[in-house]
Protein backbone atom coordinates (compact mmCIF):
# COMPACT_ATOMS: atom_id res chain seq x y z
CA UNK A 1 0.00 0.00 0.00
CA UNK A 2 1.45 3.29 -1.07
CA UNK A 3 -0.82 6.13 -0.29
CA UNK A 4 -3.09 7.03 2.57
CA UNK A 5 -5.94 7.12 0.12
CA UNK A 6 -5.36 3.49 -0.84
CA UNK A 7 -5.16 2.60 2.81
CA UNK A 8 -8.52 4.25 3.41
CA UNK A 9 -10.01 2.10 0.61
CA UNK A 10 -8.64 -1.03 2.31
CA UNK A 11 -10.12 0.00 5.64
CA UNK A 12 -13.49 0.71 4.06
CA UNK A 13 -13.58 -2.67 2.25
CA UNK A 14 -12.65 -4.51 5.44
CA UNK A 15 -15.26 -2.60 7.38
CA UNK A 16 -17.97 -3.63 4.93
CA UNK A 17 -17.07 -7.23 5.83
CA UNK A 18 -17.13 -6.56 9.55
CA UNK A 19 -13.34 -6.63 9.73
CA UNK A 20 -10.74 -4.05 10.64
CA UNK A 21 -7.12 -3.55 9.67
CA UNK A 22 -5.25 -4.82 12.72
CA UNK A 23 -2.47 -2.58 13.94
CA UNK A 24 0.14 -5.36 13.93
CA UNK A 25 -0.12 -5.80 10.17
CA UNK A 26 3.27 -5.48 8.41
CA UNK A 27 2.31 -5.91 4.74
CA UNK A 28 -0.93 -5.24 2.88
CA UNK A 29 -1.89 -5.74 -0.74
CA UNK A 30 -4.87 -4.42 -2.69
CA UNK A 31 -6.26 -5.42 -6.07
CA UNK A 32 -7.82 -2.57 -8.04
CA UNK A 33 -10.10 -2.66 -11.07
CA UNK A 34 -11.01 0.64 -12.74
CA UNK A 35 -9.63 2.56 -9.75
CA UNK A 36 -11.86 0.61 -7.43
CA UNK A 37 -10.44 -1.65 -4.73
CA UNK A 38 -11.93 -5.12 -5.20
CA UNK A 39 -9.80 -7.20 -2.86
CA UNK A 40 -7.27 -6.96 -0.06
CA UNK A 41 -5.22 -9.12 2.28
CA UNK A 42 -2.48 -8.60 4.91
CA UNK A 43 0.35 -10.35 6.68
CA UNK A 44 1.44 -10.17 10.29
CA UNK A 45 4.43 -12.39 11.07
CA UNK A 46 3.43 -15.80 9.71
CA UNK A 47 -0.28 -15.01 9.73
CA UNK A 48 -2.42 -14.01 6.76
CA UNK A 49 -5.43 -12.00 7.84
CA UNK A 50 -7.75 -9.14 7.02
CA UNK A 51 -8.62 -10.79 3.69
CA UNK A 52 -11.71 -9.42 1.96
CA UNK A 53 -13.11 -9.41 -1.56
CA UNK A 54 -15.77 -7.00 -2.78
CA UNK A 55 -19.24 -8.62 -2.78
CA UNK A 56 -19.76 -7.66 -6.44
CA UNK A 57 -16.77 -9.67 -7.66
CA UNK A 58 -17.27 -12.99 -5.86
CA UNK A 59 -16.52 -16.12 -7.89
CA UNK A 60 -13.69 -14.71 -10.01
CA UNK A 61 -10.93 -16.25 -7.94
CA UNK A 62 -9.75 -12.94 -6.51
CA UNK A 63 -9.11 -14.41 -3.08
CA UNK A 64 -6.91 -17.09 -4.68
CA UNK A 65 -4.89 -14.27 -6.28
CA UNK A 66 -4.59 -12.47 -2.94
CA UNK A 67 -3.51 -15.53 -0.98
CA UNK A 68 -1.04 -16.54 -3.73
CA UNK A 69 0.57 -13.13 -3.64
CA UNK A 70 0.81 -13.13 0.16
CA UNK A 71 2.29 -16.67 0.13
CA UNK A 72 4.92 -15.53 -2.38
CA UNK A 73 5.77 -12.58 -0.13
CA UNK A 74 6.11 -14.91 2.87
CA UNK A 75 8.10 -17.54 1.01
CA UNK A 76 10.49 -14.78 -0.08
CA UNK A 77 11.10 -14.13 3.61
CA UNK A 78 11.66 -17.85 4.22
CA UNK A 79 8.31 -18.33 5.96
CA UNK A 80 6.73 -21.60 4.83
CA UNK A 81 4.57 -22.42 7.81
CA UNK A 82 1.69 -20.01 7.29
CA UNK A 83 -1.56 -19.43 9.16
CA UNK A 84 -4.79 -17.84 8.05
CA UNK A 85 -6.98 -16.11 10.58
CA UNK A 86 -10.46 -16.15 9.11
CA UNK A 87 -14.10 -15.65 9.93
CA UNK A 88 -16.01 -18.96 10.10
CA UNK A 89 -17.98 -18.17 6.93
CA UNK A 90 -14.77 -17.77 4.88
CA UNK A 91 -12.99 -20.85 6.22
CA UNK A 92 -14.30 -23.20 3.54
CA UNK A 93 -12.89 -20.97 0.83
CA UNK A 94 -9.41 -21.10 2.37
CA UNK A 95 -9.67 -24.86 2.81
CA UNK A 96 -10.24 -25.12 -0.94
CA UNK A 97 -6.95 -23.24 -1.39
CA UNK A 98 -5.11 -26.01 0.42
CA UNK A 99 -5.19 -24.78 4.02
CA UNK A 100 -5.99 -27.16 6.88
CA UNK A 101 -8.21 -26.19 9.76
CA UNK A 102 -6.47 -26.09 13.16
CA UNK A 103 -9.36 -24.95 15.34
CA UNK A 104 -12.50 -22.86 15.30
CA UNK A 105 -14.37 -20.83 17.85
CA UNK A 106 -17.86 -20.06 16.61
CA UNK A 107 -19.02 -17.46 15.81
CA UNK A 108 -15.77 -15.51 15.88
CA UNK A 109 -12.88 -17.10 14.08
CA UNK A 110 -11.23 -20.09 12.45
CA UNK A 111 -7.50 -20.73 12.36
CA UNK A 112 -6.10 -22.56 9.33
CA UNK A 113 -2.53 -23.45 8.42
CA UNK A 114 -0.36 -24.70 5.61
CA UNK A 115 3.16 -26.02 5.42
CA UNK A 116 4.74 -29.37 6.04
CA UNK A 117 5.20 -28.95 9.79
CA UNK A 118 1.76 -28.32 11.20
CA UNK A 119 -0.02 -29.01 14.43
CA UNK A 120 0.26 -32.79 13.99
CA UNK A 121 4.07 -32.59 13.95
CA UNK A 122 3.97 -30.28 16.98
CA UNK A 123 1.90 -32.87 18.84
CA UNK A 124 4.29 -35.64 17.84
CA UNK A 125 7.13 -33.63 19.37
CA UNK A 126 5.06 -32.85 22.48
CA UNK A 127 4.20 -36.51 22.96
CA UNK A 128 7.87 -37.18 23.66
CA UNK A 129 7.57 -35.26 26.94
CA UNK A 130 4.40 -37.03 27.97
CA UNK A 131 4.52 -38.07 31.62
CA UNK A 132 1.78 -40.22 33.03
CA UNK A 133 -0.02 -39.01 36.13
CA UNK A 134 -3.44 -38.74 37.66
CA UNK A 135 -3.38 -34.98 38.07
CA UNK A 136 -1.59 -33.32 35.18
CA UNK A 137 -1.73 -29.57 34.95
CA UNK A 138 -0.62 -26.90 32.55
CA UNK A 139 0.57 -23.36 33.20
CA UNK A 140 1.16 -20.88 30.39
CA UNK A 141 3.55 -18.09 31.25
CA UNK A 142 5.26 -15.20 29.57
CA UNK A 143 7.50 -14.30 32.54
CA UNK A 144 8.66 -10.90 31.45
CA UNK A 145 10.68 -11.41 33.67
CA UNK A 146 10.34 -14.46 35.95
CA UNK A 147 9.37 -13.31 39.45
CA UNK A 148 8.80 -14.88 42.85
CA UNK A 149 5.11 -14.71 41.88
CA UNK A 150 5.62 -17.10 38.94
CA UNK A 151 7.78 -19.31 41.09
CA UNK A 152 5.05 -19.42 43.75
CA UNK A 153 2.39 -20.31 41.16
CA UNK A 154 4.48 -23.14 39.66
CA UNK A 155 5.47 -24.50 43.07
CA UNK A 156 1.87 -24.43 44.29
CA UNK A 157 0.82 -26.44 41.23
CA UNK A 158 3.74 -28.84 41.67
CA UNK A 159 2.61 -29.58 45.24
CA UNK A 160 -0.99 -30.25 44.19
CA UNK A 161 -0.38 -32.18 40.95
CA UNK A 162 1.66 -35.17 39.77
CA UNK A 163 2.99 -33.42 36.68
CA UNK A 164 3.23 -29.71 35.78
CA UNK A 165 3.72 -28.70 32.14
CA UNK A 166 4.90 -25.09 31.88
CA UNK A 167 4.58 -23.51 28.43
CA UNK A 168 6.57 -20.36 27.76
CA UNK A 169 5.02 -17.93 25.27
CA UNK A 170 7.53 -17.85 22.43
CA UNK A 171 6.50 -14.76 20.53
CA UNK A 172 9.38 -12.34 20.86
CA UNK A 173 7.50 -9.11 21.40
CA UNK A 174 8.19 -8.79 25.11
CA UNK A 175 10.86 -6.53 26.57
CA UNK A 176 12.76 -9.55 27.87
CA UNK A 177 13.77 -11.71 24.87
CA UNK A 178 12.40 -15.23 24.62
CA UNK A 179 15.74 -16.98 25.15
CA UNK A 180 16.33 -15.01 28.36
CA UNK A 181 12.81 -15.63 29.68
CA UNK A 182 13.10 -19.36 28.98
CA UNK A 183 16.51 -19.61 30.66
CA UNK A 184 15.47 -17.74 33.81
CA UNK A 185 12.35 -19.93 34.16
CA UNK A 186 14.36 -23.15 33.72
CA UNK A 187 16.85 -21.99 36.36
CA UNK A 188 14.04 -20.93 38.67
CA UNK A 189 12.27 -24.30 38.71
CA UNK A 190 15.26 -26.61 38.24
CA UNK A 191 14.87 -27.97 41.77
CA UNK A 192 11.24 -29.07 41.29
CA UNK A 193 11.33 -32.59 39.82
CA UNK A 194 7.77 -32.84 38.48
CA UNK A 195 7.92 -29.69 36.35
CA UNK A 196 8.53 -29.82 32.57
CA UNK A 197 9.25 -26.54 30.80
CA UNK A 198 8.18 -26.41 27.13
CA UNK A 199 8.67 -23.93 24.34
CA UNK A 200 5.25 -22.44 23.61
CA UNK A 201 5.57 -22.61 19.83
CA UNK A 202 2.90 -21.43 17.43
CA UNK A 203 -0.04 -22.97 19.20
CA UNK A 204 -0.14 -21.31 22.64
CA UNK A 205 -0.75 -17.56 22.84
CA UNK A 206 1.06 -16.84 19.59
CA UNK A 207 0.38 -14.19 16.99
CA UNK A 208 -1.59 -16.90 15.19
CA UNK A 209 -3.82 -18.04 18.02
CA UNK A 210 -4.15 -14.81 19.97
CA UNK A 211 -2.99 -11.72 18.06
CA UNK A 212 -4.60 -9.21 20.39
CA UNK A 213 -2.44 -10.32 23.27
CA UNK A 214 0.44 -8.59 21.55
CA UNK A 215 -1.35 -5.34 20.88
CA UNK A 216 -2.88 -3.08 23.46
CA UNK A 217 -6.44 -3.43 22.37
CA UNK A 218 -8.84 -5.20 24.68
CA UNK A 219 -11.81 -5.31 22.33
CA UNK A 220 -12.06 -8.72 20.65
CA UNK A 221 -9.62 -10.05 23.24
CA UNK A 222 -12.30 -12.40 24.56
CA UNK A 223 -13.09 -13.69 21.04
CA UNK A 224 -9.45 -14.41 20.34
CA UNK A 225 -8.88 -15.94 23.75
CA UNK A 226 -11.64 -18.37 22.79
CA UNK A 227 -9.74 -19.42 19.65
CA UNK A 228 -6.48 -19.90 21.54
CA UNK A 229 -8.33 -22.06 24.07
CA UNK A 230 -9.96 -24.14 21.34
CA UNK A 231 -6.47 -24.99 20.07
CA UNK A 232 -5.51 -25.89 23.62
CA UNK A 233 -8.45 -28.18 24.36
CA UNK A 234 -8.43 -29.78 20.92
CA UNK A 235 -4.71 -30.42 20.47
CA UNK A 236 -2.49 -29.76 23.47
CA UNK A 237 -4.55 -30.96 26.44
CA UNK A 238 -5.37 -34.40 24.97
CA UNK A 239 -1.75 -34.97 23.86
CA UNK A 240 -0.41 -34.55 27.40
CA UNK A 241 -3.63 -35.70 29.15
CA UNK A 242 -3.90 -32.40 30.98
CA UNK A 243 -6.64 -32.34 33.60
CA UNK A 244 -6.31 -28.82 34.95
CA UNK A 245 -4.88 -25.45 34.12
CA UNK A 246 -3.40 -23.17 36.78
CA UNK A 247 -3.39 -19.39 36.51
CA UNK A 248 -2.50 -16.51 38.76
CA UNK A 249 -5.17 -14.02 39.65
CA UNK A 250 -4.90 -11.06 37.31
CA UNK A 251 -5.26 -7.72 39.06
CA UNK A 252 -3.53 -5.51 36.46
CA UNK A 253 -3.82 -6.47 32.82
CA UNK A 254 -7.25 -6.29 31.17
CA UNK A 255 -6.29 -8.54 28.23
CA UNK A 256 -4.90 -11.29 30.48
CA UNK A 257 -7.92 -10.93 32.70
CA UNK A 258 -10.33 -11.44 29.82
CA UNK A 259 -8.27 -14.51 28.82
CA UNK A 260 -8.77 -15.88 32.35
CA UNK A 261 -12.51 -15.16 32.07
CA UNK A 262 -12.68 -17.08 28.77
CA UNK A 263 -10.92 -20.03 30.41
CA UNK A 264 -13.62 -20.13 33.10
CA UNK A 265 -16.29 -20.77 30.48
CA UNK A 266 -14.44 -22.91 27.94
CA UNK A 267 -12.20 -25.28 29.92
CA UNK A 268 -14.84 -26.94 32.14
CA UNK A 269 -16.84 -27.83 29.00
CA UNK A 270 -13.92 -30.06 28.03
CA UNK A 271 -13.42 -31.57 31.45
CA UNK A 272 -10.47 -29.38 32.37
CA UNK A 273 -10.44 -27.71 35.76
CA UNK A 274 -9.34 -24.11 36.08
CA UNK A 275 -7.48 -23.34 39.28
CA UNK A 276 -6.99 -19.66 40.06
CA UNK A 277 -4.19 -19.15 42.55
CA UNK A 278 -4.23 -15.87 44.49
CA UNK A 279 -1.17 -13.74 43.80
CA UNK A 280 1.77 -13.89 46.12
CA UNK A 281 1.91 -10.61 48.06
CA UNK A 282 5.09 -8.96 49.16
CA UNK A 283 4.55 -5.72 51.04
CA UNK A 284 0.99 -4.63 50.47
CA UNK A 285 0.98 -5.35 46.73
CA UNK A 286 0.81 -8.49 44.60
CA UNK A 287 4.06 -9.52 42.93
CA UNK A 288 3.91 -9.16 39.17
CA UNK A 289 6.28 -8.78 36.27
CA UNK A 290 4.71 -5.46 35.35
CA UNK A 291 5.45 -4.17 38.89
CA UNK A 292 9.07 -5.23 38.39
CA UNK A 293 9.26 -3.49 35.01
CA UNK A 294 7.74 -0.32 36.52
CA UNK A 295 10.38 -0.29 39.25
CA UNK A 296 13.11 -0.71 36.63
CA UNK A 297 11.56 2.06 34.55
CA UNK A 298 11.56 4.35 37.60
CA UNK A 299 15.24 3.60 38.15
CA UNK A 300 14.58 1.65 41.36
CA UNK A 301 16.42 -1.53 40.37
CA UNK A 302 17.46 -2.33 43.95
CA UNK A 303 13.83 -2.51 45.02
CA UNK A 304 13.15 -5.38 42.63
CA UNK A 305 15.40 -7.64 44.73
CA UNK A 306 12.59 -8.66 47.08
CA UNK A 307 10.29 -9.56 44.16
CA UNK A 308 12.70 -11.77 42.22
CA UNK A 309 14.47 -15.09 42.62
CA UNK A 310 18.18 -14.50 43.29
CA UNK A 311 19.19 -15.76 39.83
CA UNK A 312 16.91 -13.25 38.10
CA UNK A 313 18.11 -10.35 40.22
CA UNK A 314 21.70 -11.39 39.49
CA UNK A 315 20.85 -11.40 35.78
CA UNK A 316 19.45 -7.86 36.00
CA UNK A 317 22.72 -6.70 37.53
CA UNK A 318 24.78 -8.38 34.79
CA UNK A 319 26.06 -6.61 31.66
CA UNK A 320 23.81 -8.83 29.51
CA UNK A 321 20.74 -7.12 31.01
CA UNK A 322 21.86 -3.57 30.26
CA UNK A 323 20.23 -3.23 26.83
CA UNK A 324 17.00 -4.73 28.20
CA UNK A 325 16.93 -2.26 31.06
CA UNK A 326 17.55 0.59 28.63
CA UNK A 327 14.61 -0.58 26.53
CA UNK A 328 12.31 -0.80 29.55
CA UNK A 329 13.24 2.74 30.56
CA UNK A 330 12.39 4.18 27.17
CA UNK A 331 9.40 1.99 26.29
CA UNK A 332 5.79 2.47 27.23
CA UNK A 333 4.85 -1.02 26.01
CA UNK A 334 2.45 -3.08 28.06
CA UNK A 335 4.83 -6.02 27.58
Amino acid at each position, binding site marked *: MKTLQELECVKALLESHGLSLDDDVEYTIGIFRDEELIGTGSVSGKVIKCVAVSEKIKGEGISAKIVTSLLHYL*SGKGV*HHVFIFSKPESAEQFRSLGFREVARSEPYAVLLE*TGPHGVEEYKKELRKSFVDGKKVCCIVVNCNPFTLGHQYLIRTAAKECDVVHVFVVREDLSLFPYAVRLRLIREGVADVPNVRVHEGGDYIISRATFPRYFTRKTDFAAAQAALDLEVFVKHIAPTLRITSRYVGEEPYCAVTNSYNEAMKTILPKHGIRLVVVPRLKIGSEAVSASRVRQLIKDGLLEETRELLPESVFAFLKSPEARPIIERIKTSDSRH
Partner: protein
Amino acid sequence: MELRNAGSAGTLESSDIMITLHPKTDEGIEIVLESPAKQQFGKAINTTITETLMGLGIHSALVEAKDRGALDCTIKARVETAAMRAAGLDNLEVYP
Protein backbone atom coordinates in the same frame (compact mmCIF):
# COMPACT_ATOMS: atom_id res chain seq x y z
CA MET B 1 20.29 -31.49 -8.88
CA GLU B 2 20.51 -30.72 -5.18
CA LEU B 3 17.99 -28.64 -3.24
CA ARG B 4 19.73 -25.95 -1.19
CA ASN B 5 16.74 -24.13 0.25
CA ALA B 6 12.97 -24.07 -0.05
CA GLY B 7 11.65 -23.01 -3.43
CA SER B 8 8.16 -22.59 -4.75
CA ALA B 9 6.32 -21.99 -8.01
CA GLY B 10 2.75 -21.73 -9.19
CA THR B 11 -0.40 -20.08 -7.89
CA LEU B 12 -3.58 -21.04 -6.10
CA GLU B 13 -5.69 -19.98 -9.04
CA SER B 14 -8.08 -22.37 -10.71
CA SER B 15 -6.37 -24.97 -13.01
CA ASP B 16 -2.99 -24.28 -11.44
CA ILE B 17 -0.94 -25.91 -8.69
CA MET B 18 1.42 -24.36 -6.13
CA ILE B 19 4.49 -26.46 -5.49
CA THR B 20 6.95 -25.84 -2.66
CA LEU B 21 10.03 -28.02 -2.36
CA HIS B 22 11.97 -28.32 0.88
CA PRO B 23 15.35 -30.03 1.22
CA LYS B 24 15.30 -33.00 3.53
CA THR B 25 18.12 -34.88 5.23
CA ASP B 26 17.13 -38.43 4.36
CA GLU B 27 16.50 -40.08 0.99
CA GLY B 28 13.05 -40.24 -0.56
CA ILE B 29 10.34 -38.01 -1.92
CA GLU B 30 7.64 -37.11 0.59
CA ILE B 31 4.55 -35.36 -0.74
CA VAL B 32 1.91 -33.46 1.21
CA LEU B 33 -0.93 -32.96 -1.26
CA GLU B 34 -4.06 -30.85 -0.84
CA SER B 35 -6.43 -31.16 -3.77
CA PRO B 36 -10.18 -31.00 -4.35
CA ALA B 37 -9.72 -34.05 -6.58
CA LYS B 38 -7.45 -35.92 -4.20
CA GLN B 39 -9.62 -39.02 -4.16
CA GLN B 40 -9.75 -39.48 -7.93
CA PHE B 41 -6.39 -38.02 -8.98
CA GLY B 42 -4.25 -37.94 -5.84
CA LYS B 43 -2.17 -40.90 -6.94
CA ALA B 44 -1.73 -39.60 -10.49
CA ILE B 45 -0.62 -36.17 -9.23
CA ASN B 46 1.87 -37.74 -6.83
CA THR B 47 3.26 -39.89 -9.64
CA THR B 48 3.71 -36.87 -11.94
CA ILE B 49 5.50 -34.95 -9.18
CA THR B 50 7.76 -37.88 -8.28
CA GLU B 51 8.65 -38.69 -11.90
CA THR B 52 9.45 -35.04 -12.68
CA LEU B 53 11.76 -34.84 -9.65
CA MET B 54 13.45 -38.13 -10.54
CA GLY B 55 13.97 -36.82 -14.09
CA LEU B 56 15.84 -33.87 -12.56
CA GLY B 57 17.96 -36.20 -10.47
CA ILE B 58 16.27 -35.19 -7.21
CA HIS B 59 15.84 -38.16 -4.91
CA SER B 60 15.28 -36.37 -1.63
CA ALA B 61 12.65 -33.68 -1.09
CA LEU B 62 9.66 -32.71 0.97
CA VAL B 63 6.99 -31.51 -1.46
CA GLU B 64 4.03 -29.36 -0.59
CA ALA B 65 1.46 -29.37 -3.35
CA LYS B 66 -1.69 -27.28 -3.31
CA ASP B 67 -3.63 -28.35 -6.36
CA ARG B 68 -6.52 -26.48 -7.91
CA GLY B 69 -7.19 -28.89 -10.77
CA ALA B 70 -3.94 -28.59 -12.74
CA LEU B 71 -3.22 -30.64 -15.86
CA ASP B 72 -0.17 -32.92 -15.99
CA CYS B 73 1.85 -30.48 -18.10
CA THR B 74 1.16 -27.70 -15.59
CA ILE B 75 2.20 -29.88 -12.66
CA LYS B 76 5.41 -30.81 -14.47
CA ALA B 77 6.24 -27.18 -15.28
CA ARG B 78 5.58 -26.00 -11.73
CA VAL B 79 7.70 -28.77 -10.21
CA GLU B 80 10.60 -27.98 -12.57
CA THR B 81 10.52 -24.27 -11.75
CA ALA B 82 10.22 -24.89 -8.01
CA ALA B 83 13.19 -27.30 -8.21
CA MET B 84 15.26 -24.74 -10.09
CA ARG B 85 14.53 -22.10 -7.46
CA ALA B 86 15.19 -24.50 -4.59
CA ALA B 87 18.52 -25.43 -6.18
CA GLY B 88 19.43 -21.77 -6.71
CA LEU B 89 19.78 -22.14 -10.50
CA ASP B 90 18.90 -19.49 -13.10
CA ASN B 91 17.83 -21.89 -15.82
CA LEU B 92 17.34 -25.54 -16.51
CA GLU B 93 20.40 -26.24 -18.68
CA VAL B 94 21.18 -29.20 -16.49
CA TYR B 95 17.88 -30.71 -17.50
CA PRO B 96 18.65 -33.65 -19.82
